[in-house]
Protein backbone atom coordinates (compact mmCIF):
# COMPACT_ATOMS: atom_id res chain seq x y z
CA UNK A 1 0.00 0.00 0.00
CA UNK A 2 1.24 3.44 -0.79
CA UNK A 3 1.62 5.84 2.06
CA UNK A 4 -0.51 8.95 1.85
CA UNK A 5 -0.40 11.97 4.04
CA UNK A 6 -2.49 11.13 7.06
CA UNK A 7 -1.35 11.75 10.63
CA UNK A 8 -3.07 8.58 11.82
CA UNK A 9 -1.34 6.31 9.31
CA UNK A 10 1.20 3.77 10.60
CA UNK A 11 4.98 4.28 10.25
CA UNK A 12 6.06 3.88 6.66
CA UNK A 13 8.03 0.69 5.90
CA UNK A 14 10.86 0.26 3.40
CA UNK A 15 8.74 -1.49 0.76
CA UNK A 16 6.19 1.33 0.80
CA UNK A 17 9.01 3.89 0.58
CA UNK A 18 10.52 2.13 -2.43
CA UNK A 19 7.15 2.13 -4.20
CA UNK A 20 6.97 5.94 -4.09
CA UNK A 21 9.62 6.26 -6.81
CA UNK A 22 8.83 4.72 -10.20
CA UNK A 23 11.19 5.07 -13.20
CA UNK A 24 9.13 7.90 -14.71
CA UNK A 25 6.93 9.13 -11.87
CA UNK A 26 7.01 10.08 -8.20
CA UNK A 27 4.38 9.82 -5.51
CA UNK A 28 3.21 13.22 -4.26
CA UNK A 29 3.83 12.28 -0.62
CA UNK A 30 7.60 12.76 -1.08
CA UNK A 31 6.90 16.50 -1.11
CA UNK A 32 4.16 16.85 1.51
CA UNK A 33 4.49 14.05 4.08
CA UNK A 34 6.13 15.12 7.35
CA UNK A 35 7.17 11.59 8.20
CA UNK A 36 8.97 11.23 4.89
CA UNK A 37 10.65 14.59 5.48
CA UNK A 38 12.00 13.35 8.83
CA UNK A 39 13.25 10.17 7.16
CA UNK A 40 14.97 12.26 4.47
CA UNK A 41 16.70 14.30 7.14
CA UNK A 42 18.00 11.09 8.75
CA UNK A 43 18.80 9.04 5.68
CA UNK A 44 19.74 11.58 2.97
CA UNK A 45 20.94 14.57 4.99
CA UNK A 46 22.24 12.20 7.68
CA UNK A 47 24.37 10.18 5.24
CA UNK A 48 25.39 12.37 2.30
CA UNK A 49 28.30 14.83 2.33
CA UNK A 50 26.66 18.17 3.18
CA UNK A 51 28.24 21.50 2.22
CA UNK A 52 29.19 23.46 5.35
CA UNK A 53 31.23 26.42 4.13
CA UNK A 54 34.39 27.53 2.38
CA UNK A 55 37.82 27.60 4.03
CA UNK A 56 38.14 31.30 3.16
CA UNK A 57 35.30 32.03 5.61
CA UNK A 58 37.65 31.02 8.45
CA UNK A 59 40.99 32.49 7.34
CA UNK A 60 42.68 32.92 10.73
CA UNK A 61 43.07 30.95 13.93
CA UNK A 62 39.83 31.09 15.92
CA UNK A 63 37.66 32.27 13.01
CA UNK A 64 34.37 30.41 13.12
CA UNK A 65 31.13 30.13 11.15
CA UNK A 66 28.02 28.29 12.38
CA UNK A 67 25.30 26.48 10.47
CA UNK A 68 23.25 23.27 10.53
CA UNK A 69 23.87 19.91 8.83
CA UNK A 70 20.19 19.13 8.40
CA UNK A 71 17.10 20.84 9.85
CA UNK A 72 18.36 20.23 13.39
CA UNK A 73 22.03 19.41 13.99
CA UNK A 74 24.01 22.61 14.75
CA UNK A 75 27.71 22.68 13.81
CA UNK A 76 30.69 25.04 13.97
CA UNK A 77 33.22 25.45 11.16
CA UNK A 78 36.45 26.62 12.82
CA UNK A 79 40.18 26.99 12.14
CA UNK A 80 42.39 25.83 15.03
CA UNK A 81 45.79 27.07 16.22
CA UNK A 82 47.67 24.72 13.86
CA UNK A 83 45.70 26.02 10.87
CA UNK A 84 43.54 22.88 10.53
CA UNK A 85 39.84 23.38 9.76
CA UNK A 86 37.30 21.37 11.77
CA UNK A 87 33.57 20.86 11.78
CA UNK A 88 32.45 20.47 15.42
CA UNK A 89 29.10 19.67 16.93
CA UNK A 90 27.80 22.93 18.41
CA UNK A 91 26.90 21.34 21.75
CA UNK A 92 28.57 21.79 25.11
CA UNK A 93 30.00 18.52 26.43
CA UNK A 94 28.54 19.28 29.89
CA UNK A 95 24.76 19.66 29.67
CA UNK A 96 24.38 20.29 25.98
CA UNK A 97 23.98 24.06 25.64
CA UNK A 98 24.62 25.32 22.13
CA UNK A 99 28.09 26.71 22.53
CA UNK A 100 28.15 29.43 19.88
CA UNK A 101 24.97 31.28 18.98
CA UNK A 102 26.30 33.89 16.57
CA UNK A 103 26.68 33.30 12.86
CA UNK A 104 30.38 34.06 12.66
CA UNK A 105 33.26 35.66 14.53
CA UNK A 106 36.60 34.93 16.12
CA UNK A 107 37.27 33.19 19.43
CA UNK A 108 40.52 32.21 21.20
CA UNK A 109 38.52 29.47 22.91
CA UNK A 110 34.83 28.58 23.18
CA UNK A 111 33.43 29.28 26.66
CA UNK A 112 29.99 27.94 27.49
CA UNK A 113 27.47 30.53 28.71
CA UNK A 114 26.07 28.24 31.40
CA UNK A 115 28.77 26.76 33.70
CA UNK A 116 31.84 28.05 31.93
CA UNK A 117 33.34 24.85 30.52
CA UNK A 118 35.90 26.05 28.00
CA UNK A 119 37.11 24.31 24.84
CA UNK A 120 40.06 24.85 22.51
CA UNK A 121 39.39 25.73 18.88
CA UNK A 122 40.14 22.10 17.94
CA UNK A 123 37.33 21.05 20.31
CA UNK A 124 39.43 19.63 23.14
CA UNK A 125 38.38 20.46 26.69
CA UNK A 126 40.52 23.26 28.12
CA UNK A 127 39.04 24.00 31.54
CA UNK A 128 36.19 23.22 33.93
CA UNK A 129 35.57 25.83 36.66
CA UNK A 130 35.82 24.49 40.25
CA UNK A 131 36.92 21.11 38.93
CA UNK A 132 37.67 19.73 42.43
CA UNK A 133 34.00 18.80 42.81
CA UNK A 134 34.50 16.00 40.27
CA UNK A 135 37.32 14.30 42.22
CA UNK A 136 36.54 10.73 43.23
CA UNK A 137 33.24 10.74 41.29
CA UNK A 138 34.50 8.56 38.44
CA UNK A 139 34.45 11.61 36.13
CA UNK A 140 37.47 11.65 33.82
CA UNK A 141 38.27 15.06 32.31
CA UNK A 142 40.60 13.30 29.83
CA UNK A 143 37.74 11.21 28.43
CA UNK A 144 37.29 12.35 24.79
CA UNK A 145 33.55 12.43 25.49
CA UNK A 146 34.26 15.70 27.30
CA UNK A 147 35.58 17.34 24.15
CA UNK A 148 33.41 19.01 21.54
CA UNK A 149 32.62 16.13 19.22
CA UNK A 150 34.03 16.26 15.70
CA UNK A 151 31.89 15.75 12.64
CA UNK A 152 33.57 13.75 9.86
CA UNK A 153 34.64 16.38 7.34
CA UNK A 154 36.75 16.83 4.23
CA UNK A 155 37.34 19.58 1.72
CA UNK A 156 37.72 19.81 -2.03
CA UNK A 157 39.61 22.87 -3.31
CA UNK A 158 38.55 24.79 -0.21
CA UNK A 159 34.88 23.71 -0.16
CA UNK A 160 34.24 22.00 3.20
CA UNK A 161 31.72 19.18 3.45
CA UNK A 162 30.71 17.14 6.50
CA UNK A 163 28.75 13.95 6.98
CA UNK A 164 27.02 12.35 9.95
CA UNK A 165 27.78 8.92 8.42
CA UNK A 166 30.83 6.77 9.26
CA UNK A 167 30.34 4.59 6.23
CA UNK A 168 29.73 6.86 3.23
CA UNK A 169 32.63 6.79 0.71
CA UNK A 170 35.35 9.44 0.88
CA UNK A 171 34.43 12.89 -0.43
CA UNK A 172 36.52 12.57 -3.63
CA UNK A 173 34.84 9.35 -4.62
CA UNK A 174 31.43 10.75 -3.72
CA UNK A 175 31.96 13.83 -5.93
CA UNK A 176 33.16 11.58 -8.75
CA UNK A 177 33.20 13.08 -12.23
CA UNK A 178 31.05 16.01 -11.05
CA UNK A 179 34.17 17.41 -9.33
CA UNK A 180 35.22 18.76 -12.75
CA UNK A 181 32.87 21.71 -12.22
CA UNK A 182 34.58 22.62 -8.92
CA UNK A 183 37.87 22.38 -10.81
CA UNK A 184 36.52 24.66 -13.52
CA UNK A 185 35.29 27.22 -10.96
CA UNK A 186 38.73 27.37 -9.29
CA UNK A 187 40.67 27.22 -12.58
CA UNK A 188 38.81 30.34 -13.69
CA UNK A 189 40.92 32.19 -11.10
CA UNK A 190 44.32 33.23 -12.48
CA UNK A 191 45.76 32.01 -9.13
CA UNK A 192 43.74 28.77 -9.23
CA UNK A 193 41.79 29.58 -6.04
CA UNK A 194 38.51 31.26 -5.13
CA UNK A 195 37.41 32.95 -1.91
CA UNK A 196 34.05 33.92 -0.47
CA UNK A 197 33.41 37.66 -0.97
CA UNK A 198 30.62 40.21 -0.93
CA UNK A 199 28.25 38.67 1.61
CA UNK A 200 25.34 36.28 1.52
CA UNK A 201 21.66 36.53 0.55
CA UNK A 202 19.21 34.36 2.51
CA UNK A 203 15.90 33.69 0.78
CA UNK A 204 13.08 31.91 2.59
CA UNK A 205 11.31 29.39 0.36
CA UNK A 206 7.90 28.16 1.50
CA UNK A 207 8.23 24.86 -0.33
CA UNK A 208 9.82 21.44 -0.04
CA UNK A 209 13.61 21.55 -0.48
CA UNK A 210 13.50 19.16 -3.45
CA UNK A 211 11.40 21.56 -5.55
CA UNK A 212 14.30 23.99 -5.55
CA UNK A 213 16.74 21.24 -6.64
CA UNK A 214 14.45 20.01 -9.40
CA UNK A 215 14.32 23.48 -10.91
CA UNK A 216 18.10 23.80 -11.39
CA UNK A 217 18.23 21.88 -14.67
CA UNK A 218 14.54 22.33 -15.47
CA UNK A 219 15.07 23.91 -18.86
CA UNK A 220 11.42 23.67 -19.83
CA UNK A 221 10.38 26.48 -17.45
CA UNK A 222 12.40 29.65 -18.19
CA UNK A 223 10.55 30.72 -21.34
CA UNK A 224 7.26 30.35 -19.46
CA UNK A 225 8.04 31.38 -15.89
CA UNK A 226 10.35 34.25 -16.84
CA UNK A 227 8.45 35.40 -19.91
CA UNK A 228 7.26 38.59 -18.19
CA UNK A 229 10.65 39.93 -17.15
CA UNK A 230 12.17 39.04 -20.52
CA UNK A 231 9.39 40.92 -22.33
CA UNK A 232 9.67 43.82 -19.88
CA UNK A 233 13.39 44.08 -20.66
CA UNK A 234 12.82 43.76 -24.42
CA UNK A 235 10.02 46.36 -24.37
CA UNK A 236 12.30 48.75 -22.55
CA UNK A 237 15.22 48.10 -24.92
CA UNK A 238 12.91 48.87 -27.85
CA UNK A 239 12.29 52.39 -26.45
CA UNK A 240 15.99 53.24 -26.31
CA UNK A 241 17.55 55.62 -28.84
CA UNK A 242 20.60 54.20 -30.69
CA UNK A 243 23.06 56.19 -28.55
CA UNK A 244 21.82 54.65 -25.25
CA UNK A 245 24.40 51.87 -25.40
CA UNK A 246 25.13 51.56 -21.68
CA UNK A 247 21.41 51.28 -20.84
CA UNK A 248 21.01 48.65 -23.56
CA UNK A 249 24.00 46.65 -22.31
CA UNK A 250 22.60 46.62 -18.78
CA UNK A 251 19.08 45.55 -19.78
CA UNK A 252 20.47 42.82 -22.04
CA UNK A 253 21.55 40.81 -18.99
CA UNK A 254 17.93 39.66 -18.65
CA UNK A 255 16.68 38.16 -21.97
CA UNK A 256 18.92 34.99 -21.80
CA UNK A 257 16.72 33.86 -18.87
CA UNK A 258 14.00 33.20 -21.36
CA UNK A 259 16.23 31.42 -23.89
CA UNK A 260 14.53 29.15 -26.41
CA UNK A 261 13.86 25.42 -26.05
CA UNK A 262 16.42 24.78 -28.84
CA UNK A 263 19.07 26.75 -27.00
CA UNK A 264 18.57 24.70 -23.84
CA UNK A 265 18.31 21.43 -25.77
CA UNK A 266 21.80 21.95 -27.18
CA UNK A 267 23.28 22.49 -23.73
CA UNK A 268 22.60 18.87 -22.65
CA UNK A 269 22.34 17.37 -19.15
CA UNK A 270 24.93 15.11 -17.52
CA UNK A 271 24.10 12.89 -14.52
CA UNK A 272 26.50 11.23 -12.06
CA UNK A 273 26.36 8.79 -9.15
CA UNK A 274 24.99 10.02 -5.80
CA UNK A 275 22.44 12.29 -7.52
CA UNK A 276 24.82 14.94 -8.89
CA UNK A 277 24.22 16.53 -12.31
CA UNK A 278 24.76 19.60 -14.42
CA UNK A 279 23.40 21.19 -17.57
CA UNK A 280 25.61 22.86 -20.13
CA UNK A 281 29.24 22.02 -20.77
CA UNK A 282 29.92 22.95 -24.36
CA UNK A 283 27.45 25.80 -24.15
CA UNK A 284 24.96 27.37 -21.73
CA UNK A 285 22.96 30.56 -21.32
CA UNK A 286 26.16 32.02 -19.81
CA UNK A 287 28.26 31.21 -22.92
CA UNK A 288 27.96 34.59 -24.62
CA UNK A 289 29.13 36.86 -21.80
CA UNK A 290 31.90 39.12 -23.04
CA UNK A 291 35.30 38.54 -21.45
CA UNK A 292 36.85 41.41 -19.48
CA UNK A 293 40.21 42.21 -21.25
CA UNK A 294 42.21 42.62 -18.00
CA UNK A 295 40.86 39.29 -16.77
CA UNK A 296 41.78 37.61 -20.04
CA UNK A 297 45.32 39.02 -19.79
CA UNK A 298 45.68 37.68 -16.23
CA UNK A 299 44.42 34.26 -17.33
CA UNK A 300 46.82 34.10 -20.27
CA UNK A 301 49.73 35.11 -18.02
CA UNK A 302 48.88 32.20 -15.67
CA UNK A 303 47.80 29.46 -18.02
CA UNK A 304 48.78 30.41 -21.56
CA UNK A 305 46.29 31.11 -24.30
CA UNK A 306 45.19 27.61 -25.18
CA UNK A 307 44.53 26.43 -21.62
CA UNK A 308 42.71 29.70 -20.83
CA UNK A 309 40.46 29.15 -23.79
CA UNK A 310 39.71 25.59 -22.63
CA UNK A 311 38.86 26.75 -19.10
CA UNK A 312 36.44 29.45 -20.27
CA UNK A 313 34.90 27.17 -22.91
CA UNK A 314 33.68 24.71 -20.27
CA UNK A 315 30.41 26.46 -19.70
CA UNK A 316 27.99 24.82 -17.28
CA UNK A 317 24.76 26.46 -16.17
CA UNK A 318 23.76 24.88 -12.83
CA UNK A 319 25.62 22.00 -11.18
CA UNK A 320 24.04 20.11 -8.30
CA UNK A 321 25.98 18.28 -5.61
CA UNK A 322 23.01 16.44 -4.22
CA UNK A 323 21.43 17.37 -1.85
CA UNK A 324 22.88 20.58 -0.40
CA UNK A 325 24.91 22.59 -2.89
CA UNK A 326 24.52 24.01 -6.37
CA UNK A 327 27.16 26.07 -8.16
CA UNK A 328 27.38 28.27 -11.23
CA UNK A 329 31.04 28.03 -12.18
CA UNK A 330 30.70 30.46 -15.08
CA UNK A 331 29.22 33.12 -12.78
CA UNK A 332 31.16 32.21 -9.60
CA UNK A 333 28.29 31.94 -7.21
CA UNK A 334 26.73 29.07 -5.31
CA UNK A 335 23.40 28.39 -3.67
CA UNK A 336 23.18 26.34 -0.50
CA UNK A 337 20.02 24.53 0.59
CA UNK A 338 19.12 24.51 4.29
CA UNK A 339 15.93 22.51 4.92
CA UNK A 340 13.70 23.64 7.80
CA UNK A 341 10.45 21.66 7.48
CA UNK A 342 8.55 19.64 4.89
CA UNK A 343 7.29 22.89 3.32
CA UNK A 344 10.06 25.31 4.20
CA UNK A 345 13.75 25.82 3.42
CA UNK A 346 16.28 28.65 3.23
CA UNK A 347 18.31 29.16 0.06
CA UNK A 348 21.61 30.98 0.64
CA UNK A 349 23.47 32.66 -2.23
CA UNK A 350 27.24 33.12 -1.77
CA UNK A 351 29.54 34.85 -4.25
CA UNK A 352 33.22 34.15 -4.92
CA UNK A 353 36.23 36.23 -5.88
CA UNK A 354 38.55 34.72 -8.49
CA UNK A 355 41.97 35.27 -6.92
CA UNK A 356 44.20 37.24 -9.26
CA UNK A 357 41.29 38.61 -11.32
CA UNK A 358 40.34 42.33 -11.54
CA UNK A 359 37.69 43.64 -9.09
CA UNK A 360 35.16 44.02 -11.92
CA UNK A 361 34.84 40.23 -12.02
CA UNK A 362 33.56 40.11 -8.44
CA UNK A 363 31.26 43.06 -9.14
CA UNK A 364 29.81 41.16 -12.08
CA UNK A 365 29.24 38.11 -9.89
CA UNK A 366 27.50 40.22 -7.23
CA UNK A 367 25.35 41.94 -9.84
CA UNK A 368 24.26 38.53 -11.05
CA UNK A 369 23.55 37.25 -7.51
CA UNK A 370 21.40 40.33 -6.82
CA UNK A 371 19.54 40.43 -10.14
CA UNK A 372 18.74 36.71 -10.26
CA UNK A 373 18.89 35.29 -6.74
CA UNK A 374 17.75 38.08 -4.39
CA UNK A 375 14.35 37.71 -2.73
CA UNK A 376 13.58 41.06 -4.41
CA UNK A 377 14.85 40.10 -7.87
CA UNK A 378 12.64 39.84 -10.95
CA UNK A 379 13.58 36.19 -11.51
CA UNK A 380 13.66 34.28 -8.20
CA UNK A 381 10.14 35.24 -7.02
CA UNK A 382 8.55 33.83 -10.20
CA UNK A 383 10.41 30.54 -9.69
CA UNK A 384 9.37 30.41 -6.04
CA UNK A 385 5.76 31.19 -6.99
CA UNK A 386 5.80 27.99 -9.08
CA UNK A 387 7.34 25.88 -6.28
CA UNK A 388 4.81 27.20 -3.75
CA UNK A 389 1.97 26.37 -6.11
CA UNK A 390 3.29 22.80 -6.46
CA UNK A 391 3.43 22.58 -2.67
CA UNK A 392 -0.24 23.66 -2.53
CA UNK A 393 -1.39 21.78 -5.63
CA UNK A 394 -0.06 18.44 -4.43
CA UNK A 395 -2.53 18.52 -1.56
CA UNK A 396 -5.08 17.66 -4.25
CA UNK A 397 -6.33 14.09 -4.22
CA UNK A 398 -6.94 14.29 -7.99
CA UNK A 399 -3.79 12.29 -8.69
CA UNK A 400 -1.05 10.76 -6.59
CA UNK A 401 1.67 11.13 -9.23
CA UNK A 402 4.18 13.69 -10.44
CA UNK A 403 5.66 12.73 -13.78
CA UNK A 404 9.19 12.79 -15.22
CA UNK A 405 9.03 11.08 -18.61
CA UNK A 406 10.85 13.58 -20.83
CA UNK A 407 13.46 11.78 -23.01
CA UNK A 408 13.01 8.55 -21.05
CA UNK A 409 14.84 5.70 -22.83
CA UNK A 410 16.96 8.21 -24.75
CA UNK A 411 19.66 8.81 -22.10
CA UNK A 412 23.11 7.55 -23.01
CA UNK A 413 25.13 5.60 -20.42
CA UNK A 414 28.89 6.35 -20.40
CA UNK A 415 31.55 4.98 -18.03
CA UNK A 416 30.97 7.29 -15.04
CA UNK A 417 28.02 9.36 -16.21
CA UNK A 418 24.76 9.49 -18.14
CA UNK A 419 24.19 12.11 -20.80
CA UNK A 420 20.98 13.32 -22.37
CA UNK A 421 19.34 16.24 -24.14
CA UNK A 422 19.06 19.57 -22.37
CA UNK A 423 15.30 19.36 -21.90
CA UNK A 424 15.43 15.77 -20.61
CA UNK A 425 14.10 14.80 -17.17
CA UNK A 426 17.44 13.01 -16.72
CA UNK A 427 18.21 15.41 -13.87
CA UNK A 428 15.11 14.34 -11.92
CA UNK A 429 15.68 10.65 -12.61
CA UNK A 430 19.28 11.10 -11.40
CA UNK A 431 18.13 12.75 -8.18
CA UNK A 432 15.48 10.16 -7.42
CA UNK A 433 17.76 7.19 -7.98
CA UNK A 434 19.97 8.69 -5.30
CA UNK A 435 16.91 9.45 -3.15
CA UNK A 436 15.80 5.85 -3.36
CA UNK A 437 19.24 4.48 -2.52
CA UNK A 438 19.77 6.82 0.45
CA UNK A 439 16.26 6.20 1.74
CA UNK A 440 16.82 2.43 1.44
CA UNK A 441 20.03 3.03 3.44
CA UNK A 442 22.11 1.79 0.51
CA UNK A 443 24.39 4.81 0.55
CA UNK A 444 27.41 2.65 -0.34
CA UNK A 445 25.86 1.92 -3.73
CA UNK A 446 24.24 4.86 -5.48
CA UNK A 447 24.12 4.46 -9.24
CA UNK A 448 24.78 6.94 -12.00
CA UNK A 449 21.63 8.73 -13.03
CA UNK A 450 19.66 8.00 -16.15
CA UNK A 451 16.86 5.78 -17.26
CA UNK A 452 18.35 2.35 -16.53
CA UNK A 453 16.76 0.71 -13.53
CA UNK A 454 20.06 -1.08 -12.64
Amino acid at each position, binding site marked *: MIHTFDPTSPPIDDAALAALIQPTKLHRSVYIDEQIFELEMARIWGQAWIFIGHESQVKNHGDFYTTHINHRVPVILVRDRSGAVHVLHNRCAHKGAKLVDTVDGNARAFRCCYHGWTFNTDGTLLKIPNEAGYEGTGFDPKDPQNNLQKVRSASYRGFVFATLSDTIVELNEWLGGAAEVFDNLCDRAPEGEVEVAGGVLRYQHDCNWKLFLENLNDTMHPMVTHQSVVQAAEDYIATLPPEASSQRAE*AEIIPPFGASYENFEDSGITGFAYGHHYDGGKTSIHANYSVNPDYWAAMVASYGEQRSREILAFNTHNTLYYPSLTIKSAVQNIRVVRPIAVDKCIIETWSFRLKGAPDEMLQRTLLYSRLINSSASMVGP*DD*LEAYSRIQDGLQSTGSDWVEMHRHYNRDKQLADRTVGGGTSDLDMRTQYQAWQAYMGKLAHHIPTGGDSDE
Partner: protein
Amino acid sequence: MSDSVDLRAIEHFLYDEANLLDNPDLDRWIELYSEDGSYWMPVIPNQPDPLNHVSIFYDDRVMMEVRRRNFVHPRAASKDHSVRASHIIGNVRCSGRNQQGDLVVTSNFQCVLYYRREQRLYAGTYLHHLIATDNSFKIRHKKVQLINCDAPHKSLTIYL
Protein backbone atom coordinates in the same frame (compact mmCIF):
# COMPACT_ATOMS: atom_id res chain seq x y z
CA MET B 1 21.25 73.10 8.59
CA SER B 2 22.33 75.78 6.17
CA ASP B 3 20.36 77.76 3.58
CA SER B 4 16.72 77.79 4.76
CA VAL B 5 15.43 74.29 4.09
CA ASP B 6 11.67 73.88 4.19
CA LEU B 7 11.32 70.70 6.27
CA ARG B 8 7.53 70.72 5.82
CA ALA B 9 7.98 70.59 2.04
CA ILE B 10 10.42 67.70 2.37
CA GLU B 11 8.01 65.81 4.63
CA HIS B 12 5.18 66.27 2.15
CA PHE B 13 7.38 65.04 -0.65
CA LEU B 14 8.25 61.87 1.32
CA TYR B 15 4.55 61.29 2.08
CA ASP B 16 3.69 61.65 -1.60
CA GLU B 17 6.41 59.16 -2.54
CA ALA B 18 5.15 56.66 0.06
CA ASN B 19 1.62 57.10 -1.23
CA LEU B 20 2.72 55.96 -4.71
CA LEU B 21 4.05 52.76 -3.11
CA ASP B 22 1.02 52.15 -0.86
CA ASN B 23 -1.21 51.49 -3.87
CA PRO B 24 1.68 50.86 -6.17
CA ASP B 25 1.90 53.17 -9.16
CA LEU B 26 5.45 52.59 -10.33
CA ASP B 27 5.00 54.67 -13.50
CA ARG B 28 4.47 57.80 -11.41
CA TRP B 29 6.90 56.72 -8.67
CA ILE B 30 9.79 56.49 -11.14
CA GLU B 31 9.09 60.05 -12.29
CA LEU B 32 10.15 61.21 -8.81
CA TYR B 33 13.70 60.03 -9.55
CA SER B 34 16.40 61.90 -11.45
CA GLU B 35 17.85 60.31 -14.60
CA ASP B 36 20.85 59.13 -12.57
CA GLY B 37 18.62 58.11 -9.65
CA SER B 38 19.12 54.90 -7.69
CA TYR B 39 17.32 52.80 -5.08
CA TRP B 40 19.34 50.72 -2.63
CA MET B 41 18.37 48.16 0.02
CA PRO B 42 21.54 46.80 1.70
CA VAL B 43 21.61 43.29 3.12
CA ILE B 44 23.76 44.09 6.18
CA PRO B 45 23.90 47.00 8.66
CA ASN B 46 26.58 49.57 7.77
CA GLN B 47 27.12 48.11 4.31
CA PRO B 48 29.80 50.33 2.75
CA ASP B 49 28.71 50.16 -0.88
CA PRO B 50 26.36 48.43 -3.32
CA LEU B 51 28.95 47.26 -5.86
CA ASN B 52 31.49 45.26 -3.85
CA HIS B 53 28.88 43.65 -1.62
CA VAL B 54 25.62 42.02 -2.59
CA SER B 55 22.33 43.85 -1.84
CA ILE B 56 18.63 42.99 -1.67
CA PHE B 57 17.92 45.81 -4.17
CA TYR B 58 20.18 48.13 -6.08
CA ASP B 59 18.27 49.54 -9.04
CA ASP B 60 19.28 52.33 -11.33
CA ARG B 61 16.83 53.84 -13.85
CA VAL B 62 17.38 50.95 -16.25
CA MET B 63 16.26 48.32 -13.75
CA MET B 64 13.43 50.60 -12.53
CA GLU B 65 12.20 50.81 -16.12
CA VAL B 66 12.28 47.01 -16.49
CA ARG B 67 10.69 46.53 -13.08
CA ARG B 68 7.75 48.85 -13.67
CA ARG B 69 6.92 47.00 -16.91
CA ASN B 70 7.30 43.60 -15.24
CA PHE B 71 5.19 44.71 -12.27
CA VAL B 72 2.04 44.99 -14.38
CA HIS B 73 2.82 42.20 -16.86
CA PRO B 74 -0.06 39.69 -17.00
CA ARG B 75 2.34 36.70 -17.17
CA ALA B 76 4.35 37.49 -14.03
CA ALA B 77 2.97 34.77 -11.76
CA SER B 78 4.36 36.28 -8.59
CA LYS B 79 2.31 39.41 -9.41
CA ASP B 80 -0.98 37.47 -9.61
CA HIS B 81 -1.22 38.38 -5.95
CA SER B 82 -1.61 42.10 -5.60
CA VAL B 83 0.42 44.08 -3.10
CA ARG B 84 -1.16 46.52 -0.69
CA ALA B 85 1.02 48.52 1.63
CA SER B 86 0.68 51.16 4.32
CA HIS B 87 3.68 53.34 5.08
CA ILE B 88 4.15 55.52 8.14
CA ILE B 89 7.09 57.93 8.06
CA GLY B 90 8.40 59.88 11.05
CA ASN B 91 11.47 61.49 12.62
CA VAL B 92 12.19 63.34 9.39
CA ARG B 93 15.47 65.21 9.65
CA CYS B 94 17.61 67.10 7.17
CA SER B 95 21.32 67.14 7.99
CA GLY B 96 22.31 69.58 5.26
CA ARG B 97 23.79 69.05 1.81
CA ASN B 98 26.29 66.50 0.51
CA GLN B 99 29.18 67.25 -1.86
CA GLN B 100 26.89 67.08 -4.87
CA GLY B 101 24.68 69.72 -3.26
CA ASP B 102 21.80 67.31 -2.64
CA LEU B 103 19.72 67.62 0.53
CA VAL B 104 20.48 64.71 2.86
CA VAL B 105 17.27 63.60 4.56
CA THR B 106 16.86 60.73 7.02
CA SER B 107 13.59 59.35 8.37
CA ASN B 108 12.18 56.32 10.13
CA PHE B 109 9.53 54.20 8.46
CA GLN B 110 7.23 51.31 9.14
CA CYS B 111 5.49 49.53 6.32
CA VAL B 112 2.74 46.98 6.74
CA LEU B 113 2.47 44.94 3.57
CA TYR B 114 -0.22 42.51 2.47
CA TYR B 115 0.82 39.95 -0.14
CA ARG B 116 0.04 36.31 -0.85
CA ARG B 117 -2.68 36.00 1.84
CA GLU B 118 -0.29 37.21 4.50
CA GLN B 119 0.42 40.45 6.37
CA ARG B 120 4.05 41.43 7.03
CA LEU B 121 5.82 44.21 8.86
CA TYR B 122 8.94 45.99 7.62
CA ALA B 123 10.71 48.72 9.59
CA GLY B 124 13.89 50.74 9.32
CA THR B 125 15.33 54.04 8.18
CA TYR B 126 15.24 55.86 4.88
CA LEU B 127 18.05 57.99 3.57
CA HIS B 128 17.08 60.31 0.70
CA HIS B 129 19.39 62.46 -1.39
CA LEU B 130 17.08 65.11 -2.84
CA ILE B 131 17.65 67.58 -5.63
CA ALA B 132 15.63 70.76 -5.05
CA THR B 133 13.70 71.75 -8.20
CA ASP B 134 11.55 74.82 -8.88
CA ASN B 135 8.60 73.73 -6.82
CA SER B 136 9.45 70.24 -5.60
CA PHE B 137 12.28 67.68 -5.45
CA LYS B 138 13.82 64.83 -7.42
CA ILE B 139 15.30 61.79 -5.72
CA ARG B 140 18.88 61.13 -6.70
CA HIS B 141 19.29 58.30 -4.22
CA LYS B 142 17.13 56.41 -1.75
CA LYS B 143 18.55 53.92 0.70
CA VAL B 144 16.26 51.63 2.69
CA GLN B 145 17.97 50.22 5.74
CA LEU B 146 15.81 47.44 7.19
CA ILE B 147 16.33 46.57 10.85
CA ASN B 148 16.21 42.87 9.86
CA CYS B 149 18.21 43.31 6.63
CA ASP B 150 20.37 40.22 7.26
CA ALA B 151 17.50 37.86 8.17
CA PRO B 152 16.13 35.38 5.61
CA HIS B 153 13.55 37.20 3.47
CA LYS B 154 10.45 36.14 1.62
CA SER B 155 9.80 37.31 -1.94
CA LEU B 156 9.49 41.09 -2.13
CA THR B 157 7.92 42.23 -5.39
CA ILE B 158 7.66 45.95 -4.66
CA TYR B 159 9.94 48.76 -3.49
CA LEU B 160 9.50 49.72 0.18
